């Protein structure tokens, strides 16, 4: 046992002292906070040069309306709401173009003006725009299609004006129609409860964002923790084998002690990561006042399933690493193992949408998928019954024992084998060899 801890300690220290770990730890929060900071810093760095729009209006009445609406916007809507002096959005200026000559030649002429930066864009409004049966009645021409603010504004303003015109034409009171067609808003609530004193605790309005995000984030975190730790074991073992370190180690420790030490070291690396990530997540949730949506039991089950997931996938990757002689060998054997890790990701949406369905219950009890999918179900409301969680732990623990046993058998033979490229058939043979 002492030697297992010696190996585990060294594996752990090697990992957390590695540049990859330190960069990973620092980079994630830096990237997250960096994007927020950059977003904040660049928020005011908007290109506020005026955008000049030429309008070819065949209706004869829409261009003045557009001009009036643009003027109103330029006076009120392009300034910082706090600092009224500071312009934060570009002004739109309208240039009316004689509609009598609206033909292909005019389109070319206006396109040339856009190319010469004399105009930002131009708009052609057909005379039949009010006709509900007509199509392609408005065309917007630009060479900067990524700038969406102007076409979005035009969409809104034109829809507004044309709808008003249509109502007027039909002799219907638009204000009355809007009042009568007001949409019904269904409030989504949790469940009401009765406290110990018999008082009814009213159901609270559910936070769609929180109820979706917490299960999703829990599973993604589990996926990231497994992905960042288990495959690294393959590289670590392969390096020891390729650099002939394994023989030195095996002269001092048994193959099982070496494998167990490496697995335990990796588990501790992963736990360190999860403490950092979960701590960060808790901080963010406290800031966003979302802590009430997290069941404390989720944290306990998260750690339990994280351990089981790491031992399952860690032992699989360690066995593959020990059997291979070079990275090329490992790549072909890694694919099935990676598929097992990624499988729960394919089931994310159906399980998230319906965590208590037969499919969700069955797939979350399939041991390789249990750590991630059971975590997802526990984080989703109403969560699985306790017996299902315990059954998941039991099945997963049994599968973990099998994986450790099989990996130990493969590791014992593989770690000193040379020359032959391993196949899945050969690994199975090693598992059942004496």
């Amino acid at each position: 046992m002492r030697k297992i801890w010696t190996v585990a300690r060294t594996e752990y220290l090697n990992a957390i002292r590695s540049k990859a770990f330190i960069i990973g730890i620092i980079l994630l929060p830096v990237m997250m906070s960096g994007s927020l900071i950059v977003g904040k810093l660049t928020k005011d760095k908007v290109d506020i040069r005026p955008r000049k729009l030429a309008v070819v209006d065949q209706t004869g009445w829409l261009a003045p309306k557009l001009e009036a609406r643009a003027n109103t916007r330029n006076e009120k809507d392009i300034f910082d709401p706090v600092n009224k002096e500071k312009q934060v959005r570009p002004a739109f200026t309208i240039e009316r173009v004689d509609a009598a000559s609206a033909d292909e030649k005019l389109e070319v002429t206006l396109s040339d003006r856009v190319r010469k930066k004399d105009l930002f864009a131009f708009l052609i409004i057909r005379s039949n725009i009010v006709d509900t049966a007509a199509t392609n009645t408005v065309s917007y021409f630009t060479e900067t299609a990524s700038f969406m603010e102007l076409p979005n504004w035009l969409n809104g303003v034109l829809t507004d004006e044309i709808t008003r015109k249509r109502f007027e034409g039909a002799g219907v009171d638009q204000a009355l129609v809007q009042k009568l067609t007001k949409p019904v808003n269904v409030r989504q609530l949790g469940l009401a409860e009765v406290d110990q004193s018999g008082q009814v605790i009213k159901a609270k309005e559910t936070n769609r964002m929180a109820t979706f995000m917490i299960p999703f984030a829990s599973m993604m975190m589990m996926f990231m923790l497994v992905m960042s730790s288990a495959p690294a074991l393959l590289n670590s073992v392969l390096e020891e084998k390729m650099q002939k370190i394994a023989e030195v180690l095996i002269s001092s420790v048994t193959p099982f002690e070496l494998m167990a030490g490496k697995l335990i070291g990796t588990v501790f690396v992963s736990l360190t990561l999860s403490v950092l990530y979960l701590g960060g997540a808790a901080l963010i949730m406290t800031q966003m006042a979302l802590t009430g949506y997290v069941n404390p039991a989720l944290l306990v089950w998260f750690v339990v399933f994280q351990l089981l997931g790491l031992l399952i996938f860690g032992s699989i990757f360690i066995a593959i690493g020990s059997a291979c002689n070079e990275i090329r060998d490992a790549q072909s054997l890694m694919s099935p193992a990676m598929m097992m890790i990624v499988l729960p990701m394919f089931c994310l949406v159906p399980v998230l949408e319906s965590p208590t369905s037969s499919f969700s219950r069955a797939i979350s009890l399939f041991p390789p998928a249990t750590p991630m999918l059971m975590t997802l179900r526990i984080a989703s409301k109403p969560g699985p019954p306790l017996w299902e969680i315990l059954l998941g732990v039991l099945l997963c623990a049994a599968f973990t024992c099998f994986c450790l046993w099989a990996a130990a058998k493969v590791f014992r033979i593989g770690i000193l084998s040379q020359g032959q490229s391993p196949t899945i058939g050969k690994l199975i043979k090693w598992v059942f060899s004496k």
Partner: protein
Amino acid sequence: MALRTKSDMSAAPPSFAVNLVDVTKRFGTQVAVNNLSLQVPTGSIYGFIGPNGSGKTTTIRMILHIFLADSGTVEVLGRQGTRSANDDIGYLPEERGLYKKMTVRRMLLYYAALKGVSEKAAGPEVDRWLERMDLTPWGKKNVEALSKGMAQKVQFISAVLSKPKLLILDEPFSGLDPVNLEVLRSAILDVRKQGTTVIFSTHNMTTAEEMCDYIFMIYRGNKVLDGTLASIRATYGEDTIRLRVQGGRAALQGVEGVEVTRDFGQHLEIRNPGDPQALLQRIAAKARVELFEVTTPSLHDIFVRIARPETKEEANA
């Protein structure tokens, strides 16, 4: 475990550090080691020689219980059939195994810890060995910064740090320049003086002759030589003659009974199972003899006689 105390060291050691009895190891249908019996006396330096692939490393791995024998018994430091003696064995494998991204000192402490030596006890030993090997400035550097010779010395330190009772060195001198070779040779002899039994395999027959109390040669899995150098040479008798004649090798053309085994440039070595006086007369009749010395065969000659290509062909026939 801390470093061994004097009382541990003074406990009566077994007569044989290694005692193999009828040991056989197969890989599939290939017999790597066949019915091998070998006793390595405690405190001796035992040289393992043999062509590549003859079974030296397999024998060493069985002594370390990295491989388990298919049959026979393996007793190491008085303990039979278990790895329990491994903490008392230092091992330097043929291909060096060092963590490139670890510092020299940290890696040595790790290897010592795997042998059960605490960091506190191993620290001063690491410093002492680094100083002795002239590697003190490299202690804090990553292994990848070391030259091949330095890495070799670091690997040696890792093998002797725990003050083992048995030190197994697989090709310890390969790739070393003469200066470093002398440093390592002297270190091995010092370790032996402190009571450690040393087994080392080598392809360098001169080194084996100079350093080993006993020589063991394995060929195609079978023991073909085992004993002191003198006893092995005596087996072959004084059938070797060192000879220098005017006109060199060409002058010996057609002389009956002359079989040149090695041409050293300055002299020839020939094998003569017959009467040396008669041979001398025959040679003197054809060329002027400058040197004629009757001697026993060198270990190199014995090795070549056993493992030369003709023997292989005969064996295959």
